[in-house]
């Protein structure tokens, strides 16, 4: 078994795929360098993240599969699932070795798996578009914290940019410790570091805009008033809105 180590980024992974083909590795395990546990008998191959190599793989794939299918691979990658590289590599090998487009061959194990994982990530992307809750600070910034299971921040950037075009906002992924910021019409990814053990990521109440408490109160009141007690169905509520998202939602948890 040949271990192939890359830097954990999407480009890094695509460059790894390039190397797998370039070195004609067959029995191979691609994994991020920081997750590598060591193999007994062989030296790992370390991938240099070369954007040119990555782009050649991406372009080669687009000769075989549609842009939608290629976007699915990226979504899948962002799932962060253990051994996701194995599934992606199996899919890519099948796609590159086949004549007609295989993206609709749901009877192939890698294709159905990629489809299902991509769907799972898409579902959380859609949930984040729904469950992000901004809090307005005194200097006019709308600030939100999320802790998604998957790394969906890159996937929701466009939605929030289009929607809140005239607004300064920041969405911070507290699990992965980076954020998405929108200022003057452009979005950018930013590193935000809080001191170890500090709660400052969560506790922004001391910098609230004067109206923030009122609107949180009104929102809670609204959620109470539109509920129909005679139809109570907590199971259904949790099914649609799993508890792990409640922490940052003022109407129910946060």
């Amino acid at each position, binding site marked *: 078994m040949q271990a192939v180590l890359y830097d954990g980024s999407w480009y890094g992974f695509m460059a790894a795929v390039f190397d797998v083909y370039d070195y004609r590795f067959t029995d191979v395990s691609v994994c991020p360098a920081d997750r590598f546990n060591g193999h007994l008998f062989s030296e790992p191959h370390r991938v240099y993240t070369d954007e040119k190599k990555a782009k050649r793989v991406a372009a080669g794939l687009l000769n075989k599969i549609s842009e939608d299918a290629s976007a699915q691979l990226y979504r899948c990658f962002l799932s962060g699932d253990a051994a996701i590289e194995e599934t992606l590599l199996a899919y890519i090998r099948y796609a590159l070795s086949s004549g007609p487009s295989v993206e609709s061959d749901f009877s192939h194990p890698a294709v*159905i798996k990629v489809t299902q994982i991509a769907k799972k990530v898409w579902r959380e992307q859609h949930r984040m578009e729904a469950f992000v809750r901004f809090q307005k600070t005194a200097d006019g910034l709308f600030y939100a914290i999320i802790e998604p299971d998957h790394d969906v921040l890159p996937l929701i950037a466009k939605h929030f940019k289009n929607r809140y075009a005239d607004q300064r906002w920041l969405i911070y992924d507290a699990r992965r410790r980076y954020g998405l910021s929108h200022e003057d019409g452009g979005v950018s990814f930013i590193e935000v570091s809080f001191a170890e053990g500090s709660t400052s990521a969560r506790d922004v109440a001391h910098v609230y805009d004067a109206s923030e408490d009122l609107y949180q109160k009104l929102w809670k009141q609204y959620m109470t008033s539109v509920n129909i007690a005679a139809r109570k169905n907590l199971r259904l509520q949790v099914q649609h809105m799993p508890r792990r998202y409640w922490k940052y939602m003022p109407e129910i948890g946060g």
Partner: protein
Amino acid sequence: MSDRILEKLSILADAAKYDVSCSSSGSKRTNEGGLGNAEGMGICHAYTEDGRCVSLLKILLTNQCVFDCAYCVSRKSNDVRRAAFTVREVVDLTINFYRRNYIEGLFLSSGIFSSPDITMERLVRIARTLRREENFHGYIHLKTIPGASDELLREAGLYADRLSVNIEMPTKESLALLAPDKKQEDVLRPMAFLNESIQASRDEARSLKTAPLFVPAGQSTQMVIGATPENDWQILKLSDGFYRKLNLKRVYYSGYVPISNDNRLPAIGTPVPMVRENRLYQADWLMRRYNFTVDELVTPADPFLDMQIDPKLQWALRNMHLFPVDINTADLETIQRIPGIGLQSARRIWEARKFRKLTWEHLKSFRIAANRARHFITLQGDGPRKDLTPLQIRSHILAGAHSKYTANHSPQLPLF
């Protein structure tokens, strides 16, 4: 100030909650440098304890009403607290909720506090302020007030993504009994007028690239279920007419929540008919997405849906001569009609079998509901038992089913 607005919100959200529509999908409004958009898919931002989706800020402008409809909490004769928002209050609530990502937009309805035109004018003024002054491009759903002038309806259509007027009762007789001030024609007339205007604006948009949006998410309506004796066949026939003749986007079914001791209505404490409501939504979905006709699902002779099994399974059990279906050869529409196989799995089956003959393992990986489907399909010569009667199949399926058959109470159809 803040206490007063809290009180108003609690009264006017409470009074609006029996209107079950909360959809924010199907529009195509892009953000033009301001705030918000309403493109394609709707978003459910939150869920209340009853498991219902909250997508829009759904409120009444006022619960003052000159009508006395027995099924309505805001009826004239009901002793409830009354309140009214100002235009500015509704605009500020909408914008501030929207900026915090609480909502997709506004769903504004109102009691008829004065003449229909005065009521409608106030709703239109709020929508106009949001669009013109606040540069707001999020979703707006306005109620059409029966009896309002064509000019006002047309202006409403320029600002709103969706308009709706509720038919409330499935028959004229029930409406006359419970809503003496309302006539069915008063509801149908604005619906027909808007339908014509919507179709005309679609035609215009085809020839003219810059034609303004006019009710891009179309019209919807709502029927109260279980307050009156109509059967499911009557209800679905009416819905079918709305879809075919008036091009409605959605008909909502609202299980009656008892709110009064009026002896014309089910008494307080009577359970909300949530299972029946759910079966109606399923049947409605089969009509809109699977090309089922009403008469395939229920008939005048057998006019109620089965509460224990879903309407597609009911249909299949009545039509056993059409089964089993060969998964590897049947056409797409036939596969879609197999119980336990949805639109997505049907599409996957149809695509995947171009590559190889499918087996049970493949079908399981597509996550079909095998418990139901296995009675209706053959796979490479392997088919279901032939000695079972439809009744026996029904009980086998019910015995093997878990939570899915103990009614999903959602008033919204599943999104995925």
